[in-house]
């Protein structure tokens, strides 16, 4: 009996040690850092203050030039827009989008950086917003 107990406790101890040694690295946002190196924007959406799309057509994403070109409808309230980026798996966006964004300064397009899953590759995308002409 004592033999069994000894064996069992040794087994548990070993298991516990193994569990503690496993590394799951996380970044400053508590997100898992993975081995993925892909770093691009896969889709883009722009919503108005009523959470309906304001795009007139699909946004053009150029992953080489690192630009997102989007045309918004005539009469869009540019000060209260919600941009939505879809990114490749495990990537994240900097700065984070936490609410309404003011795009009224069309001459100075906003820039967003995509950070890859391994957090080592960073690509800065320029978001060019144009308003549909009359």
């Amino acid at each position, binding site marked *: 009996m004592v033999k069994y107990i000894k064996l069992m406790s040794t087994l548990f101890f070993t298991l516990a040690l193994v569990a503690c040694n496993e590394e799951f690295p996380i970044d400053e946002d508590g997100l898992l850092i993975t081995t993925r190196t892909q770093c691009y924007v896969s889709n883009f959406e722009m919503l108005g203050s009523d959470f309906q799309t304001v795009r007139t057509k699909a946004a053009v994403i150029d992953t080489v030039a690192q630009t997102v070109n989007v045309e918004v409808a*005539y*009469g869009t*309230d540019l*000060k209260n827009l919600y941009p939505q980026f879809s990114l490749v798996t495990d990537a994240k966006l900097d700065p984070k989008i936490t609410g309404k964004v003011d795009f009224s300064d069309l001459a100075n397009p906003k820039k967003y950086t995509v950070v890859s899953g391994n957090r080592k590759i960073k690509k800065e995308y320029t978001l060019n917003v144009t308003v549909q002409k009359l």
Partner: protein
Amino acid sequence: MKIMNYKLLSCLPLLSLVLLMSACEDEQYAVPTLPQELRNDVIKRTLGPNLVGLNIEFAYGIAIPKSLGKLVSAEVEASIAGAEATYLDNKSYSTNGSGQDVGVDVGSKSVNSGNKTTVTFTKDTIAATLRYFYRIPASAKGKEVSFTFSAKASNGQTVSYKMGPYKIAEMDMVLDLAVKDNDAAYISIEDMAVYGPAAAATNAAKIDLVYLYRVVPNVTFLHALVAPSAKTYLPGVTLPAGVSKSAKINKVWALRDFHLARLQYGIYIDDVDFQQLDLSGSPDFAINLKAESGAWVETADGKYRAYIYVNSIDNTTKSAKISIKRYTMK
């Protein structure tokens, strides 16, 4: 180890027996004894904020054992007298197999006297559920109102039930205003009314929004609410003299307030929504408004906040039907 196991085992039958015995001691079901007295109960049937001009509806149930007598009268006393349309239904309702409420006359039509509304039973009735409709009077705006339901039986017993207090909203509401491009197009939030060009000129200081319908090539403009200050979005509109105010407008989708839309959606805009509304940074125009959409509006002086709901639109007649809830800021 073995000895301990044996001891434990020997205890088991005894334990099981004790458990079995206690489990068998089930309490006998007894039919509840009917209290030998007049009894009552009330439920509130309406939901959402209580607006002036709308009803607060209750169902008042009363019953007395047949051996004791019958119902004589039912009465509701409101802390603030209801508007003229307040009444206590003289029918007792039950629901039939198809889910329809079927009413049976049990008394004379209710009589309003001051704060009290009374129904006198004319049929031999021992149990009834009467509906009470309290039409909220303008005098109750912003106040609290409570109700005392009471009933009398032929044996002299009385019974009563208190409900409330219920807060009456500060909001004002107007339904189904018809707006038409280049005609009844000038909306005043202060008056909660729509004016034509001539009337708009005489009420120029009160005009907050202009309704227009435009078909612009390559652009979706259609039905729009635009403040007179946003000239860019008023193509082909000649504003009446003096109409030049600004306003803040924020388009909203799928906010179909139950009072304004009268559809199946249980969404209610209440005073608190207007109090917490932040329209800073909102534009002074909203184009491409669709049916069942809406817009939050704040007047230029910040005195009024409103929600304008678009009930319906008509592209051929270039018109729309709108309903407004408005809150006066303090």
